[in-house]
């Protein structure tokens, strides 16, 4: 009789909490929440955000952690125990995690690229490169800014459209391979190695954020950004999009539905107090979002003030040169009066000059709300290049991005590996190092698609569609399964076994009614949004104009999008169907005997 191998465990509950924090606190907290805050009412956005946290975030997080801790299996095994017809839910989680890990590590590759390029003086994105005959700067760089040029041309080498695939960029491919090697190093030994790594990946970003907070608040013009962000625009609360964005942000920020939380919780001792941990993790996640947006907005304020003052200086220089005025006679304060004076005294020349005289506005600079890779890699690097000792801040910043990204990758790969190592079929033949290696290798090879010239467009497809609808469906089925199929009384008893007390009425109401209703409404909103917008479009970089243009997706891209959503969503009904067929066959074979 073979000995039952005991399940690996976290060394202490702190490792588990750190692993959850490291997974939940990711790039979304840094590059999505500040954008949402800016778009949907500044300080006022915090109201729907906290309401959604209490109504949706905490209950669903507690649910997943409790399921994982109780069933002590990865997502596939856990849902099979709840009901054999639900094995499809686990498979769907694994498929979504697989898609996510395919494209998410490319962000780490970009972070590595910028990190390695930070060891130069001056920073390579600080100035435009010279053109071939050295009389001026490169044309594309002139039309746009040096940071955008560095991102679109030097990092991505982006092609003008999705159809023009181009070739694999070897520099990006190298960085991607390195990123996967780092992930492999961290997951190689399962919880033994992951448990130690999460101490670093969870805490280091906070150190960097604190340094940036101090630096950011002392920058010239930071206050402008903070005032702009935190002035509540309460009229946005009546906009339904505000509430939907708050719900969506809480949902995706916690990383529900991927199976990572179930995987992490399955390595807990059964008596672990997951209720307290759920509250702690969700609160820390939200607080980090707000903290990160304070930092981001002080950086925004600095950048906007810097650009505004540069714009004013350019106008001053133009006027001084055109009218041969003494240096220092035109300042930012008397600019408007002097403009009127010059318009009166030299009307003709002023009229000739006026198309070039831009109206500089601080509001306009602050209004340029950016999210996603644009914020992280363009806006931040633009702000960093204007700081003193930019190399230091650049290294710190991209290192923080790396820690955040790798922390999330650990959760994603855990979601894939835990079901694989739990299944006796695979785990009996291969040691976990080999399974982890194979998963990393496959993901790396597929990830090379995102290093091609059109790779960023494919990245956007995966980012927008691979995980959104499917996750909502998965979590909806999860909640309904636990509350109505497994039975909320049975779940209560399980929790009492584990923690020692039953969950109070608040949790039960949230699980049974509030959260499923919220998810259904989110789901309906997304579907109607997709249907109403008709054809899907994307932003392509036009090198001749130096800006983004909107284009339609070609047919095969739409097919890929459909496939991405269908591949994971259909697993749920398919799983139920397969189990049904298997049971029927077994019953028939039993009855014929």
């Amino acid at each position, binding site marked *: *009789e073979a*000995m*039952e191998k*005991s*399940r690996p*465990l976290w060394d202490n509950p702190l490792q588990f909490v750190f692993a959850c924090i490291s997974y939940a606190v990711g790039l979304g907290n840094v590059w999505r929440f500040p954008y949402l805050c800016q778009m949907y009412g500044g300080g006022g956005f915090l109201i729907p955000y906290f309401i959604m946290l209490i109504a949706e975030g905490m209950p669903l997080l507690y649910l997943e952690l409790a399921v994982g801790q109780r069933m*002590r299996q990865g997502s596939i095994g856990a849902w099979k125990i709840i009901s054999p017809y639900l094995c499809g839910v686990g498979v769907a989680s694994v498929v979504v995690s697989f898609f996510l890990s395919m494209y998410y590590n490319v962000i780490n590759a970009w972070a*590595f*690229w910028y*990190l*390695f*390029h930070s*060891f*130069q003086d*001056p920073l390579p994105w600080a*100035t435009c*490169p*010279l053109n071939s005959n*050295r*009389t*001026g700067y490169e044309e594309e760089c002139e039309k746009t800014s040096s940071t955008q040029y560095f991102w679109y041309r030097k990092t991505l080498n982006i092609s003008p459209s999705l159809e023009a695939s181009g070739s694999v960029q070897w520099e990006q491919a*190298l*960085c991607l391979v*390195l990123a996967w*090697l*780092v992930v*492999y*190093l961290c997951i*190689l*030994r399962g919880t033994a*190695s992951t448990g130690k790594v999460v101490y670093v990946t969870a805490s280091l970003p906070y150190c960097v954020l604190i340094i940036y907070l101090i630096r950011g608040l002392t920058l010239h013009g930071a206050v402008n950004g903070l005032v702009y962000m935190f002035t509540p625009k309460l009229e946005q609360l009546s906009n339904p999009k505000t509430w939907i964005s708050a719900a969506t942000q809480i949902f995706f920020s916690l990383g529900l539905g991927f199976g990572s939380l179930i995987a992490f919780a399955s390595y807990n*001792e*059964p*008596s672990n107090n997951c209720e307290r941990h759920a509250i702690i993790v969700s609160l820390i996640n939200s607080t980090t979002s707000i903290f990160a947006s304070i930092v981001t907005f002080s950086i925004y304020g600095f950048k906007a003030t810097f650009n505004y003052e540069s714009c004013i200086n350019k106008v001053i220089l133009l006027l*001084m*040169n055109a009218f*041969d*005025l*003494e*240096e*220092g*006679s035109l300042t930012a304060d008397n600019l408007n009066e002097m403009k009127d004076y010059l318009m009166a005294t030299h009307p003709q020349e002023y009229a000739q000059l006026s198309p070039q005289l831009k109206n500089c506005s601080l509001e306009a600079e602050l209004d340029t709300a950016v999210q996603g890779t644009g914020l992280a890699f363009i806006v931040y690097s633009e702000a960093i290049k204007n700081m003193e000792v930019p190399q230091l801040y650049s290294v710190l910043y991209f290192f923080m991005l790396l820690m955040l990204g790798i922390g999330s990758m650990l959760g994603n790969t855990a979601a894939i590996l835990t079901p694989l190592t739990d299944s006796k079929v695979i785990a009996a033949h291969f*040691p976990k*190092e080999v399974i982890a290696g194979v998963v990393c290798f496959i993901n790396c090879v597929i990830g090379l698609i995102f290093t091609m010239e059109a790779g960023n467009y494919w990245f956007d497809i995966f980012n927008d569609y691979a995980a959104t609808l499917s996750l909502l469906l998965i979590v909806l089925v999860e909640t309904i399964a636990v509350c109505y199929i497994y039975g909320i009384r049975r779940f209560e*008893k*399980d929790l*009492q*076994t584990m923690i020692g007390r039953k969950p109070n009425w608040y949790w039960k109401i949230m699980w049974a009614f509030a959260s499923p209703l919220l998810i259904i409404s989110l789901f309906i909103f997304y579907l109607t949004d997709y249907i109403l917008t008709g054809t899907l479009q994307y932003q392509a970089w036009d090198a001749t104009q130096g800006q983004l243009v909107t284009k339609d997706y070609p047919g095969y891209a739409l097919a890929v999008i459909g496939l991405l959503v269908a591949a994971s969503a259909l697993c749920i009904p398919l799983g139920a169907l397969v189990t049904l067929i298997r049971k029927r066959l077994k019953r028939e074979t039993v009855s014929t005997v």
Partner: protein
Amino acid sequence: VLLLTLSLAAIAHAELCKPDAQNAFKVRLSIKTALGDNAYAWDANEEYLFKAMVAFAMRRYSSKSTTQISNVLLCNVTDRVSFWFVVTDSSKNVTTVPGSEVEAAIRMNRNRINSAFLLSDQTLQFLKITSTLSPPVEPSTPVWLIVFGVVLCLIVAGIAFLVVAGIQQRKKKNKGSTERENLEEKGEVTVTVENGIPCETLDLKAGHINGVFAADDERFTSL
């Protein structure tokens, strides 16, 4: 006669040097921007230095040593500080040196002229003469590859170490379990066994809690 020559010279001067004249160049200085508090005032002495520098540039370029300071004419000096200048040819009467020659001469000696005034290409502008921008210093191997190489070696070393350690651990475990099997066969085993499972592994930390006995209080009637 003296008055006549002087007035003629003045007229000639005005003819040759005026804004947008042939072979004339506009110069613009931004002294306050460049030097801030250490800015010097632009006066007749600075103009003299400028004339001297242009004459020097012409002499160095054409190596003819015929250009005099008096050949360089300045006019229309504004508060900005900007002015026009033109270089006359002393050998031919009342003509200006072709613009291309002047341009080439200035280009060749741009550095010296800039240093004389403590300015740079951006703050001492010759409006029709574009300067070649200096390319950034590029090391032979890009810096990023070096850092990449270092990090890559560290990561690969870490992976190799962990994999080898894992293989060694597994070999030790296998050897340990085969030894135990041999011992069992010889009957010398001292490990206490309960239902085929050695007692050491029945560590409560890793075991399952049997819910049947722990949870169901309702089965028992209350006293």
